[in-house]
C-alpha cells in the first residue's frame, strides 16, 4: 500500500527524476574526472573512456574544437545515464572538427548524442541505446547532429529512440553508412538536409526504416538525398512516438518514406517485409501533422524522386491503421498486399504542363515490375489506382556526397 501511494505520487509530480539514487563514490569520482576532461579539452585533446559501465548523473558537454572522445568499443566503454539528474542529453557537442568513437551512451533522459551547429563531425562505432527497449520514457533522438556541415556517421547503432535513431537535421554534406538502427520509431531520418548519402545501413524492427523528410518552419529546406545499398527489413514496430511529433504519423510497417523532400534517389537497396509498404512517397498533406498551413517558401510536394534497381520482397500485407487496412482489403483482398510503392497522390497543380510534371520534377520508377498505388489522398481515398507504366521514367543520377575537409 505504501508503495502504491509512492508510485501515485511519482506520477503526479511527472516522473521521479529527483528520486534517482546518489551515485557510488567510485562513480562520482569517475564522473568528476571525466567532466573535468570535457571542460579542459582543447584542440588535439583525446579523452579516453575506459572500458566498463560508468554511471553518470549529468550531460557531458564538449565545447572545444578538434577533440577526440574515444572508448574501447561500443560494447565495452559504456556511459550510462539511467540515474541522470541534469541534461537532458547524454552527450552534447557545440564544436567543430571532432571525432567521437568506440563508445556507448545508454538511457539518457533526452537525446543520446546531440551535436548542434558543428562542422567536420565524425561519429564512429557509437552505440546509443535505451536498454529497456521501445518505451514512452525514452529520449527522442539517438545520434542527432543538427545544423552541421560535413557529417560522417559510420559503424554506429541506435536502439529504442522515441523519435529517430540516427537523425540528421538541417545539415549539409552528410554520409551515414554501415550503421544499424533498430526498435526506434524512425530508424534513420534525414530531415531538411542538403546532400546526404545514406548507404550500407541496416534498418530493421523500427516503425519506419529510413525517412527523408522536409518540414516547414525550419532554418533550411532539404534536397538531394541518395538512399542506396541499405537493408530495410521488417520495420513493423508499433508507433510509440509522442503525439504531435512528425514521426508519430509514420505507420508501422514503413520501409523507406519520402515526405515533401525534393531530389531523392533510392536504389540498390534490399527492402522487404515492411507490412504497410516498402516505400511511401508522401506530401506534407497526407501526414496527420495537425498543421495544414505550412509557411511560405516551403514546398509540401515531393518532386524529382527516382526509385530504381532495388530488390523488393514481401511487405504491404498488413498496413497500419484502419483506413489503410480497409483500403488494402477492398483493393487486394484479405490475403493480398499493397504494391511496393505507395504514393499519396497529392499533385502540385501549379507546375503541371499538359497535365503532368515537367520531366525533371517527376516521380520515376525503373524497378522491374514494381507498381505504384496512388491512394488518392486529396479525395480521401475515394479513387485509388494502381499504376506502373505512367511512372516509368528516369532521372539523372544525383552526385555522390563529398565530405570536404575531412580525412
Amino acid at each position, binding site marked *: 500500500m505504501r508503495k502504491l501511494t509512492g508510485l501515485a505520487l511519482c506520477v503526479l509530480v511527472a516522473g521521479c527524476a529527483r528520486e534517482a539514487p546518489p551515485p557510488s563514490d567510485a562513480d562520482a569520482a569517475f564522473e568528476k574526472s571525466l567532466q573535468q576532461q570535457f571542460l579542459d579539452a582543447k584542440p588535439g585533446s583525446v579523452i579516453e573512456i575506459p572500458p566498463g559501465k560508468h554511471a553518470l548523473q549529468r550531460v557531458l*558537454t564538449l565545447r572545444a574544437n578538434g577533440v577526440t572522445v574515444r572508448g574501447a568499443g561500443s560494447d565495452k566503454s559504456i556511459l550510462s545515464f539511467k540515474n541522470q539528474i541534469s541534461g537532458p542529453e547524454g552527450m552534447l557537442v557545440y564544436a567543430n572538427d571532432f571525432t567521437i568513437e568506440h563508445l556507448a551512451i545508454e538511457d539518457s533522459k533526452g537525446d543520446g548524442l546531440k551535436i548542434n551547429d558543428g562542422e567536420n563531425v565524425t561519429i564512429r562505432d557509437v552505440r546509443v541505446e535505451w536498454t529497456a527497449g521501445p518505451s514512452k520514457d525514452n529520449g527522442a533522438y539517438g545520434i542527432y547532429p543538427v*545544423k552541421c556541415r560535413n557529417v560522417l556517421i559510420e559503424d554506429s547503432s541506435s536502439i529504442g529512440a522515441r523519435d529517430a535513431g540516427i537523425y540528421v537535421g538541417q545539415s549539409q554534406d552528410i554520409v551515414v553508412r554501415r550503421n544499424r538502427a533498430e526498435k526506434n520509431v524512425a530508424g534513420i531520418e534525414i530531415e531538411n538536409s542538403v546532400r546526404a548519402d545514406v548507404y550500407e545501413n541496416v534498418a530493421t524492427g523500427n516503425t519506419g526504416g529510413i525517412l527523408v523528410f522536409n518540414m516547414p518552419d525550419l532554418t533550411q529546406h532539404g534536397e538531394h538525398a541518395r538512399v542506396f545499398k541499405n537493408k530495410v527489413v521488417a520495420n513493423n514496430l508499433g508507433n510509440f512516438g509522442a503525439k504531435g511529433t*512528425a514521426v508519430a504519423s509514420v505507420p508501422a510497417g514503413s520501409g523507406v518514406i519520402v515526405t515533401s523532400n525534393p531530389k531523392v534517389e533510392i536504389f540498390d537497396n534490399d527492402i522487404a517485409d515492411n507490412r504497410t509498404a516498402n516505400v511511401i512517397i508522401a506530401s506534407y498533406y497526407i501526414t496527420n501533422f495537425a498543421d495544414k498551413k505550412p509557411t511560405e517558401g516551403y514546398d509540401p510536394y515531393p518532386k524529382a524522386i527516382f526509385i530504381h534497381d532495388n530488390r523488393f520482397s514481401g511487405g504491404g500485407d498488413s498496413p497500419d491503421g484502419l483506413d489503410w487496412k480497409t483500403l488494402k482489403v477492398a483493393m487486394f483482398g484479405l490475403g493480398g498486399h499493397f504494391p511496393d510503392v505507395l504514393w499519396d497522390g497529392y499533385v502540385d497543380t501549379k507546375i503541371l504542363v499538359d497535365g503532368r510534371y515537367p520531366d525533371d520534377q517527376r516521380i520515376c520508377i525503373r524497378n522491374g515490375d514494381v507498381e505504384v498505388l496512388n491512394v488518392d489522398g486529396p479525395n480521401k481515398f475515394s479513387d485509388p489506382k494502381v499504376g506502373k507504366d505512367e511512372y516509368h521514367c528516369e532521372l539523372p543520377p544525383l552526385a555522390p556526397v563529398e565530405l570536404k575537409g575531412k580525412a
Partner: protein
Amino acid sequence: MATDHGNADEREQRSRHSGEGRNPLKRILWNPAFAGMTSLGLLLFLPLSGCTHAPQPVHFFSEGKPEKLSDWHLVEARDGKLAPNAGVVPYDLNTPLFSDYAHKFRTVWMPSGTSATYEADGPFDFPVGTVLTKTFFYPRGADADRKAVARSYDTTRDFAPGTAHEALDLADVRLVETRVLVRRERGWEAIPYVWNAAQTDAELARTGDAIPLELVGDDTAKADREPFVYVVPNEAQCAGCHVTDVKAKQIEPLGPRARHLDRDYAYADGTRNQLAHWAELGILAGLPATGLPKDADWHDEKQSLDARARSYLDVNCSHCHSPTGPANTTALDLRSANADRRRLGECKPPVAAGRGTGDHLFDIVPGKPDESILLYRMISSEPGVMMPEMGRNTTHKEGVELIREWIAAMPGNCDA
C-alpha cells in the same frame, strides 16, 4: 598573471559605493568600518594588518580560476552578513530566471575609471575587468533541518538590518552557490562556486554539484515539503544558457540589459532607479534620457497579463529560443520583442520535442493551456520533458499559473 587593482584604486572604488559623492553621511552610516579608516587615513589602511573588518580591494583575475570566492573580494561573508565589497554594486532584475525558488543577490564591479556602454536590446558592452556575481540562496526553513529551505517570495528576512538591500543576513539565509562571470581579454568566462557548510566561503566547483534540499512552503500548517536535488551547473552548462548566439559561441551576461534593469533598488542610502544609479556612479555610459525599454515584473499584478507573461518567457526561455540561440532549430522565438505569433508558438507544431509534447499537437493552443506543449513542459520537472532543460529540478507553480492564465486568455484556435 593576475591583474591587481590594488590599494591605489581603493579610494575611488569605495567612492562609488552607494553614492558617496551625493551623500557621505549615509555612506558612513552604512559602513562604519570604512568610516573609521577614512578618519585614520590611507596610510594606516594600506598594510591591512590589525584591521580585521576591512576587506581587501576587489581582485580581478585576468587568468585562471581562483579556488575560493573570497579570493576575488567581491562579496564576502563576514560579521554575519554577505556583503559586497567597496565599489561592488548590487542589482536586481524586473523578472528573474526561475531557479528552484532560490533568491538571488547580484552584483557588478568594474575596474576604476571604466564603464559599460548602454545597449538598447542586448547586454551592455562591459569593459574588460568587469566581474558579475550572482549568489543563490534561500531563506532558511523554520526548523533546524539543514536541508530545509523556504519556498517563499518574501525577501524581507533576506537582508541585514540597516543595509536596505545591500547585504544578506546570514542568520536568516542559507547560501548555496555564487556564480562569477568575468570579462577577460578573450571574452566572458563563467566560474561556479559552492558555499561550504559553515557558510564562511564558497569553493570553486567547475564540475558543479548536486545538493539535496527540501522546499518548505510558507504555510507551515500544511506540512508542505518538497525534497529535490539542487543542481549547480558545471562550467559547460553555464554556457548552455549564456551562449545566446550559437554561431558566435561566446558567453554573454543575460541579466544586465536595459529592459531587465530598469527598476528601483533599495540602496543603503535610499531607493532609486538602477540605471540612473549606474550612470551616476560612472559605470554606465550612454544612458538615454528617455525611451528606455522596460520589461514587466512578472509578479506585479498591476501590470498587464500579456506583459508579465512575455517578460517571464523572455527571461526563462529566450536565451535558447531566439533566432540566434541554440534552440533556433525549432523556430520557436520567445523573446519579448518577437511579434510573430506563430514563432511565439501559437498553433506551431513541435519540431524536436520527443516525449516533451505530452501528446499535444501545438506549442500553444489559444484558450487551451492544457493542450499546449509549452505549458506541459513548464509543469514537468523531469529532464527530457521539462523546459528550460536545466536550471531547475522543481516546478515553478506560480510561473505555470501565469502562463496558464495567459494562454487561457488568448483568442482564436488552431482548427483551421
